[in-house]
């Protein structure tokens, strides 16, 4: 019986121009979205490759210079001397810490166009390297670019609602419902058949077209982690589709006219997909306003000026804090520019820290608020999940920044003792390098899984309510 309903629904649906129109629109949007995503990923990869080439070229030149300086009589200004650890660790030899795009980054641009994905790491104060202030973006949770995530979050619900808003009411209005329900078939079975056909067609079309678009745009599906991410993507998209189908079943069961259903569903879409993200963002930024970026830049500059002015006093204090680095020759050290610079950098960091911390606290509070509020909008849940799958969200970036911080500390730990010991660098091979360590798949499943559950629970509740009500669908009178 159920399979007969499926066949019948497919016959009606495939005979209807709506389905083919929807499929064509879907194909065009998916193709354009994936192409856009892939283009952005290629741009990022190119930038990273350029950075790495620049670094390699610079290091070759430095090594050549070090070799040349071994010749007797060769000389160079201490600022341009690669053997000088202060110059090498600061201006001459900084290395890049880069966040490579995840295997399926083309699926969602997410916030990867807002969050910096490479930094030049030197012995400078952290605040001169890592600028976390760029995160201030009013549209952070609205889809920014036309990528596949945008197609899924905005369009997929509309396509689902276009195919389902009148699935029961149209049969009621054209009069076939009475004849169908005079047969030994329940309203629930009928609607399950209708939903099954529509869901299979839509999700199938989406997955197949997106897969094809990924392959055509040259995304490597055999890359490490690509397959689990693709699975997560399918699971997340299915859960998101389930929510909208659940909603359609629920609204259909109310027994209203097709027009009323369309109005209710369109309003709900507007509220959940368009209004809620803006509103939640407004709430987060109103409750936890971020201090102005100008204020922060100003604080960094003032701190630098102050610290430079107090350079010599600072050094004395620095030696107090780090007695193991004091060589005893204080007079020599006082005049040692390099050493002063280390102390100044340290002082800048200490002075700026409260401002930066206030900044980071507010941003963390905003993020936390949004993390909680996202459970009230399937669109935000979906955006987070898709960003996670594509590796273009806040969490992977945070993971990157913590590795960057560790690398910055490692870099400084390598150079500072050399500076204090007034040693000369003879080889560049022993310098630390940065390699991004990807988040584990388990952690990723954990985050995506939470989002999927948060989508599935309301879907099931809506469907349960809908199917219960459908049993008493007003066929007549």
């Amino acid at each position, binding site marked *: *019986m159920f399979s*007969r309903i499926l066949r019948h629904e497919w016959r009606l649906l495939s*005979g*209807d121009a709506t389905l083919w129109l929807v499929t064509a629109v879907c194909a065009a949007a998916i193709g354009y979205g994936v192409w856009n995503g892939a283009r952005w990923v290629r741009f990022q990869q190119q930038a990273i490759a350029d950075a790495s080439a620049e670094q390699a070229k610079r290091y070759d030149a430095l090594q050549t210079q070090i070799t040349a300086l071994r010749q007797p009589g060769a000389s160079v200004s201490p600022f341009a001397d690669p053997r000088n650890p202060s110059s090498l660790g600061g201006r001459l030899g900084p290395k890049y810490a880069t966040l490579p795009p995840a295997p399926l980054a083309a699926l969602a641009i997410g916030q990867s166009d807002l969050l910096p994905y490479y930094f030049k790491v030197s012995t400078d104060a952290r605040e001169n390297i890592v600028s976390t202030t760029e995160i201030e973006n009013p549209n952070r949770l609205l889809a920014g670019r036309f990528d596949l995530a945008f197609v899924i979050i905005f369009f997929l619900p509309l396509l689902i609602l276009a195919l389902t808003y009148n699935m029961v009411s149209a049969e009621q209005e054209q009069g076939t419902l*009475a004849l169908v329900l005079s*047969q*030994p078939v329940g309203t629930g079975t009928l609607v399950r058949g209708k939903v099954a056909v529509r869901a299979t067609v839509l999700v199938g079309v989406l997955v197949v077209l997106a897969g094809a678009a990924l392959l055509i745009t040259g995304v490597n599906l055999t890359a490490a982690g690509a397959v689990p991410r693709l699975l997560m993507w399918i699971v997340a998209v299915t859960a998101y589709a389930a929510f909208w189908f659940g909603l359609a079943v629920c609204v259909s069961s109310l027994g209203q006219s097709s027009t009323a259903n369309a109005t209710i569903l369109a309003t709900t879409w507007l509220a959940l997909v368009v209004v809620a993200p803006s509103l939640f963002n407004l709430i987060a930024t109103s409750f936890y306003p971020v201090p102005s970026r100008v204020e922060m830049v100003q604080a960094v500059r003032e701190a630098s000026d102050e610290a430079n002015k107090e350079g010599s006093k600072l050094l004395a204090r620095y030696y107090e804090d780090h007695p193991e680095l004091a060589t005893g020759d204080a007079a020599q050290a006082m005049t040692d520019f390099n050493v002063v610079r280390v102390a100044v950098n340290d002082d800048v960091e200490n002075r700026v820290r409260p401002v930066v911390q206030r900044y980071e606290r507010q941003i963390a509070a905003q993020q936390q608020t949004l993390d909680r509020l996202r459970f009230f909008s399937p669109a935000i849940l979906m955006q987070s999940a898709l960003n996670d799958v594509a590796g273009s969200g806040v969490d992977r970036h945070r993971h990157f920044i913590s590795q960057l911080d560790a690398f910055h500390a490692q870099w400084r730990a390598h150079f500072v003792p050399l500076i204090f010991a007034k040693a000369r660098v003879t080889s560049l091979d022993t310098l630390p390098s940065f390699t991004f360590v990807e988040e584990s798949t388990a952690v990723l499943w954990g985050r995506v899984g939470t989002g999927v559950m948060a989508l599935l629970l309301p879907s099931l509740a809506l469907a349960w309510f809908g199917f219960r009500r459908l049993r008493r669908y*007003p*066929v007549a009178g």
Partner: protein
Amino acid sequence: MLTAVDLTKRYNDVVALNALRLTIAPGEVFCLLGANGAGKTTTINLFLNFIEPTSGSATINGIDVTKAPLETKKYVAYIPETVMLYRNLTGLENLEYFAALAGRPDYTASQLLEFFARVGLPDGAAERRVGTYSKGMRQKVGIAIALAKGAKALLLDEPTSGLDPKASNEFSDLLRQLSADGVAVLMATHDLFRAKQSGTRVGIMKHGRLVAVHGTDEFTHADLERVYLEHMHD
């Protein structure tokens, strides 16, 4: 086969059907007569469990329709006043689908075409889209669907309205055949002539009450009309 016990349907203060007591045995053709709004369609909708009774019960084949609606619908076929079908499908595709829903998925195409021949659907129409059908043709498809179901009871809501006299007459013949095969028929109609011709009993309804029941052999067509009109005058 079809039984109503004190079957009552109230909409707020309006009594659409008031304590209907009715039993229709296999082979009987019971014609419900009455003005529009007398409760004929309400009775049929209650038997189909399309609406819930306020009190009382309707049973088909001894089973309460509110308790096991899917079970009771296996035994009963329904032809509404206006049979509406899937316009984009052919008559044959419609018949095949409804027969499958009715629990008869295994008819061959030629068997299905035979049902169309029995109800007098014009040759070649079965393969055309239902969107091109006249009301009378759709009505015949509805009858074919009921025949294909092989139901033990028929619920007919003015099934011949819109049929030309010849088709109407053929329909009466079909009803007589079905009756002879032991099918119980409940037919709401305005057509006193058909009621007399194909019915075994007639019931006259007024303001939700079944006010009179007569055997059709009790009187001539003219008598039936007189009795009916007497009831209609208050």
